[in-house]
């Protein structure tokens, strides 16, 4: 969708400016972006190719320029058709379409401003793209995007952004928030540092538990255990923005002298971001898990739920009681398990959304069960044919990795004679048995197939056949006659 295009462009343009190396980062976005109708781009590519300046000659950069062209094309299409994508919030940025395109083109003509371009594009497009849950997930995966978009966005559209973000399901927000939180410290060197504060405030106020778990956990991780404890206590008190002062006081060692509860947390994030970008960047889930673990280690069970709750921020205007917080914790658990299942089931990496993933999981379980049924049928058909001694041998084979032992032949021969007896009419069963016995006897002589090794086995065969012959009830005399004849014939 256009949102993905915008996203990719957001990543792309600064990358193009910064260097070709970074092109690889947004490539997944490109791939994702290209899922959607690509045919639209072709029309605009040729028209706008002149406008786009591709600084590097890399193929990836060329890709980026194509994407940029596609994005411009998208702009054009949007402006022309007045097409409104999935969300209604598009209407506001579309109020002045020419304004949007012109600055973009202008920027591109200038060679692509780094931040301004994504800024102008982002503020128009951020609202719709944010509402796409899958997109936010992908956003979460690339920290650069988060940094760029927020860097450009934080100044302009505050409330609308937050408002739209609130529509996104919390699970996605969690990831996106975490990524954004991580992405922000990465670029914390620039003016975007001020933006994350605002962004965080808005996000936290609107989203509630989405970002804060990761952000607070990240902060607590970096701050240190003592600070963590104080921060947790402070955060619990500060829930609902009731006592910012106390929290800020507690927080002063690590943060600046800011008294605003939100800004305080943002400050801590900033300091954390400045100090340990990589740590925060690493894994937000790790932080969550680690902080939770720390919580468990530090305190006994009663404080443990509060520790989980502390990472959860109540939404603005929502009840801050334990119910919603417990709900959030529960949702985190569920999302955790879903992620684990995603790893387990092959081919679930690309699928986003709980419902579709559950679909995949159900299909996989059903297919596995069907396979088991099919294999059990197969085993059932094979079972009567083979003696169970064979199975033990096979088991030994499987375990010890030996090739089938020659002893295998013994029961096989017995079964083969049984078969021959069963198949042929009663007229010459004895003869067939004897011929089989003869055949068996001859086999050891001609070493064509390494079935039988020792003469002892041959003797066994003879014994079995003889016994078999006797059992046929032809009388010992006849059996003996035949046997002698066969011996003579041999």
């Amino acid at each position, binding site marked *: 969708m256009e949102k993905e295009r915008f996203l990719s462009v957001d990543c792309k343009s600064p990358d193009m400016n910064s260097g070709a190396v970074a092109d690889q980062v947004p490539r997944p976005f490109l791939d994702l972006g290209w899922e959607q109708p690509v045919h639209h781009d072709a029309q605009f590519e040729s028209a706008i190719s002149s406008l786009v300046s591709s600084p590097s000659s890399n193929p990836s950069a060329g890709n980026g320029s194509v994407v940029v062209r596609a994005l411009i094309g998208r702009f054009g299409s949007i402006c022309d058709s007045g097409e409104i994508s999935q969300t209604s919030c598009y209407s506001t940025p579309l109020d002045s379409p020419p304004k949007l395109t012109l600055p973009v083109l202008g920027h591109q003509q200038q060679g692509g401003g780094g931040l301004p371009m994504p800024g102008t594009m982002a503020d128009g497009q951020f609202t719709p793209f944010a509402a796409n849950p899958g997109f936010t997930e992908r956003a979460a995966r690339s920290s650069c995007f988060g940094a760029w978009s927020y860097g450009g966005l934080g100044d302009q559209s505050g409330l609308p952004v937050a408002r739209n973000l609130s529509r996104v399901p919390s699970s996605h927000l969690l*990831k996106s928030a975490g990524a954004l939180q991580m992405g922000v410290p990465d670029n914390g060197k620039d003016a975007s540092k001020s933006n994350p504060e605002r962004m965080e405030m808005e996000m936290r106020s609107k989203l509630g538990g989405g970002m804060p778990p990761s952000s607070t956990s990240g902060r607590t991780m970096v701050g240190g255990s003592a600070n963590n404890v104080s921060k947790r206590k402070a955060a619990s008190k500060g829930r609902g923005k009731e006592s910012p002062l106390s929290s800020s006081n507690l927080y002063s060692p690590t943060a600046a002298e800011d008294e605003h509860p939100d800004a305080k947390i943002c400050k801590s994030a900033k300091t954390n971001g400045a100090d340990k970008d990589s740590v925060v960047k690493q894994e937000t889930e790790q932080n969550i898990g680690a902080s*939770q673990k720390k919580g468990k280690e530090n305190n006994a069970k009663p404080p443990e739920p509060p520790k989980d709750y502390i990472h959860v921020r109540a939404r603005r205007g929502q009840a801050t009681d334990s119910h919603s917080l417990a709900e959030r914790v529960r*949702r985190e658990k569920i999302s*955790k398990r879903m992620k*684990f299942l995603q*790893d387990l089931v092959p081919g679930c990496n690309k699928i986003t959304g709980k419902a579709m993933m559950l679909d995949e999981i159900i299909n996989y*379980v059903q297919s596995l069960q069907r396979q088991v049924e099919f294999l059990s049928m*197969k085993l059932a058909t094979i079972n009567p044919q083979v003696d169970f001694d064979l*199975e033990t041998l096979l088991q030994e084979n499987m375990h010890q990795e030996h090739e089938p032992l020659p002893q295998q032949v013994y029961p096989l021969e017995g079964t083969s004679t049984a078969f021959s007896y069963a198949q042929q009419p009663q007229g010459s069963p004895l003869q067939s048995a004897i011929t089989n016995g003869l055949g068996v006897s001859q086999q050891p002589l001609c070493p064509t*197939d390494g079935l039988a090794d020792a003469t002892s086995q041959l003797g066994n065969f003879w014994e079995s056949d003889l016994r078999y012959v006797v059992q046929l009830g032809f009388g010992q005399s006849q059996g003996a006659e035949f046997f002698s004849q066969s011996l003579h014939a041999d």
Partner: protein
Amino acid sequence: MISPSSSSASSSRKKKMKRAETKWRTAAQERIYRRRLLEALRATASRAGPRAVKEAADSALALTARGQSQWSRAILLGRCRPRRKLLLKAGGKVRRGRRRPRPAAPVPVAAAAPAGKKVRDRLRVLGRLVPGCRQLSAPSLLEEAADYVAALEMQVKAMRALADALSAASLNAAAAGEAESRVV
């Protein structure tokens, strides 16, 4: 995803993941299962049909699970006394005959957190698929499903190996039989 959940540093989560995921993937587990499977197959009368084989295989699988998971307990106890004991929950009623679908009262409440009717329906379907996990809450259901999926994978692998080995053996037998008749 930025970090695979299995590589998380959290000990508690890692323990759980390790328990569920790697428990079934070890060769030792597979060996144990194979042995049990063979015993079970030998015990079943070959003429009982494929269904008995499947049940034997499932019971062997549940046995290998040592009853640590909900579904394994359900399988083992379901076989033991058919439909006599539904002790999945404390104070479960004894039901005879056809199992009627229980009212899904606990399920929506538990699974309501993710929201969305689709998700709830799918969770219910998943609960029906995994044996003995109908009235489970969403997180535990997902955990059971993960364990069950891993166990099924192992079962399929072991059964396929066994079937291939047996069929190879029977092929040998057939070849040997043919060779005999030809030679004679």
